[in-house]
């Protein structure tokens, strides 16, 4: 059953990624085809997650591969909230290929199979893994928005004659949306970290390098929120800071497989 859902979902994400490429060249029907690809792919992946949850003994995404599956679902889900808007379609060009690759990687490493068993308590995993991954998904999209901001800002600075030919979100909207996404994702990360630290205290463990990196990531994004909403930092500086935070998220995602699971 999981295989029957995985392949169509991957195909839909792949179709969406290819269609976004077509949309960048000739805006129009390709963008609509891409949006439907994302919707269908996400619904199929949702069904896959449901099947995994039903068949699992405990939390089904407790492994690195499983968490990658959940992470892709969260990224695409958050993108879907405003990604269907035609002005944001180009962002799909950054999000969907990444989602398709990570989804395939999750499958290869066993993250989409059924019958997973976990030795850790369900509630802890749901809260800790779920909240941290939701925050990472938000930071990933904020990074994509910031990257798009920097690209568009560069085009404006270079006074490119074709500046009006590509439909992308306005500079101000990119700046605002990236900041809001981080503002929403940071509390999720804070709660996820808090749950992890509580469990660590109960078990008498110590803070490892990955946990320290997670706290550093939290610090970067907390600084972002303070600067953005306290000191009204905007534009290029804010975008660079969001990307710096995302670099730490990438390190954490890679480090998770080696250290945490």
């Amino acid at each position, binding site marked *: 059953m999981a295989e029957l859902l995985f392949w169509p979902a991957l195909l839909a994400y792949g179709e969406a990624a290819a269609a976004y490429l077509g949309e960048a060249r000739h805006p129009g029907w390709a963008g609509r085809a891409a949006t439907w690809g994302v919707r269908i792919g996400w619904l199929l992946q949702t069904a896959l997650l449901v099947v995994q949850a039903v068949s699992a003994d405990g939390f089904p995404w407790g492994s690195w591969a499983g968490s990658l599956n959940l992470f892709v679902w969260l990224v695409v889900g958050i993108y879907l909230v405003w990604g269907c808007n035609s002005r944001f379609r180009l962002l799909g060009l950054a999000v969907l290929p990444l989602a398709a690759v990570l989804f395939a990687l999750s499958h290869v490493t066993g993250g989409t199979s059924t019958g997973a068993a976990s030795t850790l308590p369900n509630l802890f995993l749901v809260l800790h893994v779920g909240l941290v991954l939701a925050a990472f998904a938000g930071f990933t999209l904020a990074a994509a928005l910031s990257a798009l901001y920097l690209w568009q800002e560069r085009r404006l600075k270079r*006074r490119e*004659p074709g500046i*009006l*030919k590509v439909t992308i979100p*306005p*500079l101000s909207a990119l700046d605002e949306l990236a900041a809001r996404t981080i503002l929403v994702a940071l509390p999720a990360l804070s709660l996820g970290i808090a749950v992890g630290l509580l469990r660590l205290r109960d078990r008498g463990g110590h803070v490892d390098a990955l946990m320290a990196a997670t706290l550093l990531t939290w610090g970067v994004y907390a600084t972002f929120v303070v600067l953005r909403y306290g000191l009204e930092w905007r*534009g290029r500086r804010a975008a660079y800071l969001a990307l710096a935070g995302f670099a730490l998220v990438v390190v954490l995602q890679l480090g998770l497989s080696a250290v945490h699971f």
Partner: protein
Amino acid sequence: MRLVLVGISHHRTPVELREQVALTGGQAAALSGELSGAGGEAVCLSTCNRTELYVVGEDAEARALAALAAETHAHAYRLGDEAAALHLFRVAAGLDSLVPGEGEILGQVRAAYEAGAPGPLLDRLFRQALHAGKKVRAQTAIQESPASVSAAAAALAQQVFGELAGRRILVVGAGKVSEQAARNLISRGAAIGFVANRSLDHGAELARRLGAEALPLERIGEELARADVVVSSTSASGFVLGAADVAAALPARKGRPLLLIDLAVPRDLDPAIHSLDDCYLYDIDDLESVVAETMAARRGEAERAEAIVLAEAEEFRAWQASLDVVPAIASLRARAEEIRARELAKARTRLSASELEAVDSITAQILNKLLHLPTVRMKEAAAASDGLVYADAVRHLFGLGEEQE
């Protein structure tokens, strides 16, 4: 009945001649009435780029040509039926305009149609032209890209800020260029906040027209901390705004982007402003490059629009051709109905009321089913130019138009 188009346009006729035959709305309506005559049809389309007379009826071409000034006859084009229809569809789609895809022409075609004297043929022609025009605008991006420097400036502002409602726009200079740029911004939802000008009187006059406040030129530095867009076009010989003025306002702006549009020659705004953080300065050359690029995009979209227009023209041609067989079809149906009614009348005495009702219903259905295929085939034949042959054959085979027993 033949459709004739006689007209002149910007393609072949200079403005001195075009203005001789330009018609006001009232004149176009009067001429349409005059040209339609008894039983004819006429619609006159007159814009600053063209005057075109669409006429149906006896001596249509001669009458239309006579309505145009003699000096323009050498420049006038004359088109009939399919070619005339295709031309109107291209006009309505904006494909024959000076700026491909411009939107104003569709409204002008509608106004001409409403003021004209159309009959069955021109009514169908103009309704389909309006449909084609709308379809082109809905299915292609031909109208989306700006076609002028002012429109490009407004589109750039949207590229930076998105919705322009609530943005603070500062206009520097009170000339025509400033006003045109301001009006383009207004058409995209912006409200002009201030008009700054060396002569406060002129500035106040433009500010009044734009619903803005007037500002002395010396005070634009103060407004820079709050402005989102600055549009400048003065006749000053030096820079009206230096990089130092803008740099001084940046701390108060806290990273908010500032778009500066310099439409003046010599330039009003110091080019060094562009190198400041979050400041984007576009001068007239930059905007012209943007327009050249978007015009190329319009031409690309025009190819798609041409395909839509051709399909619409083909549909109109098929409809017009079907008119050749309509009288024959109508006669055939009338003859069949007459026979049915006569036979029903004969049976009336032999049948009860309910039986008569049943027979009436059955015979009507038989008749419809029997005549459906010949009707469709005749219309298809008409679309393929064989309509008249088929119509004659039907008249001969069924004795239509002959005295019946």
